[in-house]
């Protein structure tokens, strides 16, 4: 979990939404498994298999909150998504599953987009991609590095009598 070293797969498309990643007709499943074969199912060309790092255009993962998009990417073999921006809900879903969202500056993004198939190293502990720093939520990073179960963490955090003093 600390390091991912792989050749990149590049999708030079901006605003890839989760309907593209996994079309709605595949959401009727009641498990998380087996969605990799439906990744980008309706695109004329599906991404090549073998790479663990997907480099995509800006605003990756926008649209629907379907976590199936993350499951599909991971089942296909991806362990990290690299872009200059990643949509909120998708990013949260990715972190929940250990798919690393790597948000880089535009120059680094351009460089990576221009080199499909390049060998790239992502170091979660150092927060670097080929030596370039990336930001990631500190709690998610800690959790992933330590193998902490988030649900257990939350269960331990919530007092028995938790209620809010909210306006009625």
């Amino acid at each position: 979990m600390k390091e991912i070293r792989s050749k990149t797969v590049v999708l030079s498309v901006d605003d890839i939404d989760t309907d593209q990643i996994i079309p709605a007709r595949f959401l009727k499943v009641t498990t998380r498994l087996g969605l990799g074969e439906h990744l980008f199912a309706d695109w004329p060309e599906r991404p090549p298999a073998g790479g663990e790092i997907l480099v995509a255009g800006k605003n990756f993962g926008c649209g629907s909150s379907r976590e199936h998009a993350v499951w599909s990417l991971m089942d296909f073999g991806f362990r990290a998504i690299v872009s200059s921006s990643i949509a909120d809900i998708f990013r949260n879903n990715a972190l929940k599953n250990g798919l690393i969202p790597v948000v880089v500056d535009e120059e680094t993004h351009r460089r990576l987009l221009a080199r499909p198939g390049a060998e790239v190293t992502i170091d979660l502990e150092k927060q670097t991609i080929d030596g370039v720093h990336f930001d990631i939520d500190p709690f998610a990073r800690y959790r992933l590095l330590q193998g902490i179960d988030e649900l257990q963490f939350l269960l331990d955090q919530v007092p028995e009598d938790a209620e809010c003093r909210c306006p009625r």
Partner: protein
Amino acid sequence: MSTSPRTLFDKVWDAHVIRPETPDTPAVLFIDLHLIHEVTSPQAFDVLRERGLRVRSPDRCMATMDHSTPTTPGLVFTDPIAEAQVRKLEENCKEFGIQLYGLDSDRRGIVHVIGPELGLTRPGRTIVCGDSHTSTHGAFGALAFGIGTTEVSHVLATQCLLQRKAKNFAIRVEGQLQPGVTAKDLILAIIAKIGVDGGTGHVLEYMGPAVRALSMEERMTVCNMSIEAGARAGMIAPDDRPDLQSDEGATFDREETLDASKLEPMITYGTNPGAAIPVRDAVPQADEYMALEAGKPLLGRPVDVVFIGSCTNSRISDLRAAAKLIEGRKVSARTLVVPGSQQVKRQAEAEGLNKIFQEAGAEWREPGCSMCIAMNGDQLKPGQYSVSTSNRNFKGRQGAGGRTILASPLTAAASAVSGKVSDPREILS
């Protein structure tokens, strides 16, 4: 608690923090209401089952089925996988003690339509659902947002969520909407202006005289599509809650202003909700998937299907608006009218709206998400154009190869009558 001026979002957030956010850890946020539907919940219930956990507060949950349910009379499933998913929700709700508005319920409907109908959506509440259009409930001054299935399991088990606080973004709308220009056109114009990632990391608050003039259903339409601008949530301060207003001098991280008086009916031409133009304008750039050339107006283009429905525009006021325009006329395209809930359906039938639609040649359906997401058999064939009152025009959203043009109920109704992309103001005047 801070004494400096706070925004509406700040106030609702602060009132729900169980454990404060630190640099190393997110806040623990209490969730007043957890809405559940059949698509994003099965794996979450499995987690609880696997770990021997109960649902912490079943009385704070409400479940319904809407995405993969048939809209044909009799609600007969033609897809065994969809049916299995719906049955799974029935089993899960029974096992975990959660109130379900199921297939035989007279209150069932699209989750974001029935929440308010049932009085569960209330000002100042935190509301989540495994569905990005949860932002709809922000119309009531609630902090309402979509979550993923893993987070659904967290909320089921603890009634709380780990969350980092988003930033504040004020959208001020001056002036007033002109005849024929609706709340749907307003939100399409806002998204066109700030972009599909303009709101990322922010909670939008819609304010100003044009927003204050909106009815509750219109406010729901606006807040519904906040997610299409990438926002965490969208909120509108309730009219009669002095405690749920943004304070004078409250700081917003971003602000944008629009003049509603200048807005026109909007349509999308591309394959994301931000690719929208006034209905009479020329398409600014060619789109291969939509088979549209730059420089030509969409107005007058023949359409194959018109869909009036979805959590964006399927409430009684939407149906009344569409019916008024369609009354006494016939449709020239296949038209599906899908009320947002059994309650809306009953109301519409009491007002004779169903007869208006049916006499015009449109199909009057049972409630559900239907062709917005096309999971239940209601879908476009490859290459077909639809004018749709829903919220997403992504490639294949309404069926592989389907071409979606998003619009208001008025624009959709006008387009149904003419069989072409139309400006509703021509019929209204």
